[in-house]
Each structure stands twice: as C-alpha cells, then as structure tokens.
C-alpha cells in the first residue's frame, strides 16, 4: 500500500466514496491535481454550459451542442462542445506556467513564461472552426467505438494568441523537422502520472501557417478551464484533437509525432476504403489531416410547424483547409437543389454563413437538406460516407424536419 504515499488512505477513501468509484492510481496523482469529479458539481454549471447541451459522458467530460445552439457567427462558450481525453488539471498556476519548445529538431530547447509569450511576440486573432474528428459518429453502421457524437461537436470561436511560427523561428529549428507534438497538463484517466491522456500534433507545414496559434484568449477572455486555460495550441480546420489544451510543451520532431492517440486507429481512417465493419490493420490506417466539407442548418430548430408556405433558413458551412464555394438546399430529398446566399469567411479557416428563403409548394411534411461544395469541387454526401473503425469524418448532409399546414 506504499503506492498511496502522496495522499493518505483516508483522504482517498473519502474521495472515492464521493466519486462513487475507486480512484485508480489515486496515490500517483501529481500533487495539486485532484480529479475534477471530486467537486461533484453539475458539469453544466461547472463549465458554464447551456442546460440544453447534451452530456455524453461525465468521466471524462464530453458534451455537445444541438445544431440550433450554434447559430452565432462566433460561438459563445455556453454552446461549445467539450471533448476531454483525460482529467482536467484542477489547479492551474498561471504565475509559474511556462511553454517549453524541445525535440530532436530544435537547435536548442527554450522555455517561455506566459508574460514573455505575450510581450515578445505580436498577438493575432482569428475565428477558427474546430470540429471533433468523431462528430457524427453515431450515424455509422455498424456502430464504431467511442463517444457517440451526433451533430454538435463543432464550433467557431475567436482565438487570440501568438503564432506558433514566430515562436519556432525564435527558437530555431533544424531542416529535418517534420512534425510538432504537444504535451499538456491533463492527466490520464487511470491517474498514472507516467502516461499522457493525449499528445497529438500536426506536420511542420501546418505548424508554420499564419493561423496556427498558441492562444491565451478565446472570445476576448481568458480561455475557459475546460477548453485549455491558460494556453492552447489551435490548429483550425483539423480534427480538434490536434489543438492541445493546457499546453506546456511542444516537441519539434524529426519523425511523425508518436505521442498518445497518434497511432493505432486513433484519429486515423483506412488508407484505402473498406467495407462496413471490416477490421483494418494498424499499418493501413492513415492520420486525418484537414476536415471535410460540411454544413449545419442552425435556424430554425428542427421540428418547426409553420402556417405560411415560406421559411427563412440559415446556418454555417466549413471545409477544413478549403473554402466553401457553393451552398444549396433541397426540400425534395435531393431531387432538386436551390442555391443559398453564401458569405465569405472573415478569415481563412473560419466557418461561412449561408441563408435562403425556402418556399414550400403545398402542405405536408418536409425535410430541408443542406449541401455544401468546397473549393476542390467536392460536395457533402447525402448518405453517411465510408465506414471506418472509429467512425470519423461523417460529413453527410444535415437536415431538419418542417411541417407546413
């Protein structure tokens, strides 16, 4: 029982009963990092989330929005989905928080305090779309593993911070750099301090993009704790798991980063298409990069009953690294499509606003389907796209139900 040396047994026992579980590796939890579940607070209150968000899991915390909650151009915190892989750091010591840059491909490692980051580099703000790689997973058949996200694991917030590129140039990186990997302060679900919950990253080309930020603000305020306070890597347009929260360290690698959840089937899809339910060997799984073209109807909420035969619809569309060039809607299950009004993005990697005035020919049950086409000419499928073992990249058209009387 000497493993339980950090926290006394009685404390652990009372913690365990408060949580209704045994704290695995409880003794090995780093000091000051108690599982957040301890506070036994309502997660909606704890993270200031709207009560209509959907709670998928409370350990680790995973919640998603309903499409109509995502109507704002800049998503407010109360509607932003939560995807945690481990335990949130309970206490964040901002005074002593640092960001280190290390790895095989730095000339020599360097560490910055938060205030050095804010004062030594120019700050930039971008609206960046972040979508969970598994958004839409619940529609695949057979059901893939993981949290069963439906539609709302996506948002576009305004991020403010410094460019990763500026920091990497200040540190000095070698020509053999191929990837960056992040390391963060969250802890593994088992409490094992030698294990990271998640440590992903992006190729050096994405790291060097202007919009790739080391952010310290979201929507003009400190980043909320659940979204990565005090520092987050933000790589818009890529699976949101590439945007590491509670960021402490970035390793510049001379190989594809091999951190937790970079390998196996995590955030990977079969390199060539497979039949639904087929097993795929790890070596035939390829890392997801830019997210596919997609859209959401955010007004009206599904289930609208109208007495007029006219309806205004609107929503957002995005396409990973690409832009959306055409937005259409259909009220006859894709037999005919009509074009929507489509706005340009305020900056690259932000979602775009679309709207349309829909007219229904007669009374009855309708579905309004929305379809986006990106700058490569690729459109959203009406059916759920290629099955993959972990159910990523479901960009099938969104639809809402409408009754006209």
């Amino acid at each position, binding site marked *: 029982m000497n493993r339980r040396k950090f926290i006394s047994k009685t404390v652990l026992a009372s913690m365990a009963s408060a949580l209704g579980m045994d704290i695995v590796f409880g003794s090995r939890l780093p000091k000051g990092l108690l599982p957040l579940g301890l506070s036994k607070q309502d997660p909606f209150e704890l993270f200031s989330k709207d009560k209509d968000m959907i709670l*998928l899991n*409370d350990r*680790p915390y995973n919640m998603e929005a309903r499409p109509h909650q995502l109507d704002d151009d800049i998503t407010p915190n109360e509607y932003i989905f939560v995807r945690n892989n481990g335990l949130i750091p309970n206490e964040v010591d901002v005074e002593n928080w640092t960001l280190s840059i290390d790895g095989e491909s730095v000339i020599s490692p360097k560490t910055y305090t938060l205030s050095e980051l804010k004062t030594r580099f120019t700050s930039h703000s971008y609206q960046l779309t972040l979508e969970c790689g598994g958004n839409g997973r619940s529609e695949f*058949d057979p*059901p893939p593993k993981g949290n069963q996200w439906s539609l709302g694991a996506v948002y576009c917030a305004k991020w403010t911070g410094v460019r990763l590129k500026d920091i990497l140039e200040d540190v000095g990186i070698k020509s053999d750099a191929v990837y960056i990997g992040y390391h963060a302060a969250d802890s593994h679900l088992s409490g094992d301090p030698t294990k990271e919950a998640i440590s992903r990253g992006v190729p050096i080309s994405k790291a060097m993009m202007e919009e790739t930020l080391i952010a310290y603000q979201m929507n003009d305020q400190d980043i909320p704790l659940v979204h990565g306070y005090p520092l987050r890597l933000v790589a818009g347009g890529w699976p949101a798991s590439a945007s590491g929260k509670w960021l402490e360290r970035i390793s510049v690698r001379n190989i594809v980063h091999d951190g937790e959840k970079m390998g196996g089937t995590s955030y990977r899809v079969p390199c060539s298409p497979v039949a639904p339910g087929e097993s795929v060997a790890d070596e035939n799984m390829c890392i997801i990069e830019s997210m596919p073209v997609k859209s959401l109807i955010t007004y009206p909420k599904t289930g609208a009953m109208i007495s007029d035969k006219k309806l205004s619809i609107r929503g957002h569309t995005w396409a990973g690294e690409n832009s959306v060039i055409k937005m259409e809607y259909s009220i006859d299950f894709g037999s005919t499509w009509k074009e929507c009004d489509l706005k340009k993005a305020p900056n690259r990697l932000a979602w775009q606003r679309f709207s349309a005035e829909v007219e229904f020919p007669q009374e009855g049950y309708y579905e309004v389907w929305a379809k986006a086409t990106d700058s490569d000419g690729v459109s959203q499928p009406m059916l759920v796209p290629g099955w993959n073992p972990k159910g990523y990249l479901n960009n099938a058209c969104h639809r809402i139900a409408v009754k006209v009387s």
Partner: protein
Amino acid sequence: MKSSPKKEFSNQLDLINGLILSIFVVLLLFLGVLGYAIFDPSFSRFSGFFNADSDEKNEFLAEVESEEVVDGIHVETGFIDAPGMVATIQNCTGCHSSSLVIANRMNEERWIETIRWMQETQNLWDLGENEKVIVDYLVTNYPPKKIGRRANLENIEWYELED
C-alpha cells in the same frame, strides 16, 4: 523420572533438525513463488481468484456502492441488471464512467479488440476469467442495432414557429 543429560541433548538435536527442515521448506516455497513471479510478475493467472472473493482484491477495482435496481436498471451506473453486471462495474468503471461503455455497441470480436487496446495502451489490467463474463454481458445486453446508410429523423419535438 528425570531424563538423563544425554537424552536431553538428543531431544534438542531433534528440535534443531525440525527447525532446519521447516526453514528449508519455507525457503523452497519462497523460491517457487519468486520463480513464478519472474514469468508472470502481475500474478495474472490468479487475478480471477483475487477478484472473486479475496479481501486482498485488485486495489483498482471500482466498488459497487449501491445495489438499487429500478425497472431492471442499476440506478447508480445505468447498467442493465443481468448476469455479469457486477464484474463489469468493478472492472469497467474505474477510469471512465459507465456511459462510455453503455453507449458502445459491438460484437464479441470487436469488444475483445477494444479490451486489448485498453490493455496495450490505457493501463487496463488482465481480466482473467472475468473477460468472458464481461464480454458476454455486453454482447447480450447491448447488441448493435442496424441503422443502415441513413435513418429517418426521429424523436422530433414539434413546435409552432412564429415569424
């Protein structure tokens, strides 16, 4: 009758022989256990036994706090009350909540694959005989549903939209 000094001496010899013998036996036992530990340091072959009813059980197992069942559902965890539930709660709710387990619907092969993934990468222990109990419980009570390429919109909450 008082024993002669000689008899007393041989009695003591017997005692010493006995002691040496028992020390030897203890030592052999110890070496045996040590030898086993080299091949199976976590004593995984005994884990089923420890999990079942020993006080010295796996310290990572989650506790079943309450036995309250309403309409066939274990209230505390939301699991369907059926054979294998207790082993599932004990082994599968220590790291993450039961909702992650309940939300996933797989066949036997894919459940075993998921368990292996957690064992290889997420610190899940060897489940011993409980593996079959747990997989049977999950496959029986949470079978995959066929939903096809695109399902109908369901559970629509209809409301009057004013403009």
